[in-house]
């Protein structure tokens, strides 16, 4: 039951972010699906491994690879799908928490949270770069062996 709620809300939230970022109308549903897939992978992986960094990495890899394929298929820039897809994964809440602790003079907590934000956004960036590398390697292998 819980997971159905997560599926629905992550789909709607991602598609709504597509509207805020002014993505083309015909891509909104696809954006929502990409974001939903990424979030569910994160949600399940985080629940069973307890490691948000690993879960984020896995989810971003999924988002990255799917976005590359969609971009190739529909001949649009990758950024349209990847931006919407990683929105649920970005540590926005944590970044806000960090700053709130800073302005409330709790530097110890703020630094700890800040380190976490850096790690999480690093793993998102790494996942995106890694999915691009995979894509290029696959393309090169195909070019060598047609």
């Amino acid at each position, binding site marked *: 039951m819980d997971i159905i*709620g997560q599926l629905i809300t992550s789909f709607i939230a991602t598609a*709504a972010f597509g509207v*805020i970022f002014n993505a083309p109308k015909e891509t909104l549903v696809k954006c929502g699906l990409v974001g939903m897939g990424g979030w569910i992978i994160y949600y399940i992986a985080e629940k069973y491994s307890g490691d948000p960094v690993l879960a984020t990495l896995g989810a971003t890899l999924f988002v990255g690879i799917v976005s590359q394929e969609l971009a190739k298929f529909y001949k649009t820039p990758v950024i349209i799908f990847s931006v919407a897809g990683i929105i649920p994964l970005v540590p926005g*809440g944590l970044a806000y928490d960090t700053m*709130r602790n800073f302005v409330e003079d709790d530097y110890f907590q703020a630094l700890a949270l800040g380190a976490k934000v850096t790690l999480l956004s690093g793993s998102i960036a790494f996942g995106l770069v890694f999915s691009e590398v995979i894509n290029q390697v696959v393309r090169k292998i195909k070019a060598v062996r047609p």
Partner: protein
Amino acid sequence: MENEKTLTYEIMEVCLLAGKIMLQSGGETYRVEDTMMRMAAAFGIENSHSYVTPTGIIFSAEGAEPTKTKLIRISTRSTDLKKVAMVNSISRRITSGELNLESALTLLKELDALNVTFPFMVQVAAASIASGCFMIMFMGEWIDFIPAMLSGGVGYIGFLYFHRYIPVKFFSEFLASFIIGLLSFFLVKIGAGQQLDKIIIGSVMTLVPGLLVTNAVRDLMAGHLVSGLSKGAEALLTAFAIGSGIAVVLSFV
């Protein structure tokens, strides 16, 4: 000779205009560089270099005469993925030889002047729905869904309005998060909502610079050190504005 000179200038103008639209609409720096060089190559300038940072573009083209270099400044940045997609499709048509120089220039000029955003109310509705959904995704209770939608929506209206009248982005972010904090506190106080923290986090998700942080790290990894650092600084300032907006409310109550 004179003819060739003006031709190079025109090609540069097309490339720079495309780059400018992409960068202002939130395209990645490396993609802007790549697109500009591809377009130049399609028009016959084999040797071109572009250096793109979030605040400006330097583009130089080597031709028969001395190398020409032009610089344009980018002062406003937003996220408008539709424009990125449209520039992308124009550049595709240029590289496939469908578009000539003049029609590419007119198309890009039209696109630059065009306003393709969703209507105001649709954006606000999307922001408020997203706020509610994010609250659920961060393990909030369904009872807080409506309060999160309310404060997220009102906060986003505030952000759009302030941004229109006050050109300082960080100030409008500060005011918007101040409104969110105030409204969430009020809703919890009158008993409409329960978890103040979850409502606030869900509502500020439409403002937080999560995307900027990620892009900054990605640029740094790709070796675009200047872009990475400047985006990181922008993200830090935004996060600071939001955090202090909420903190002001929390210190009052």
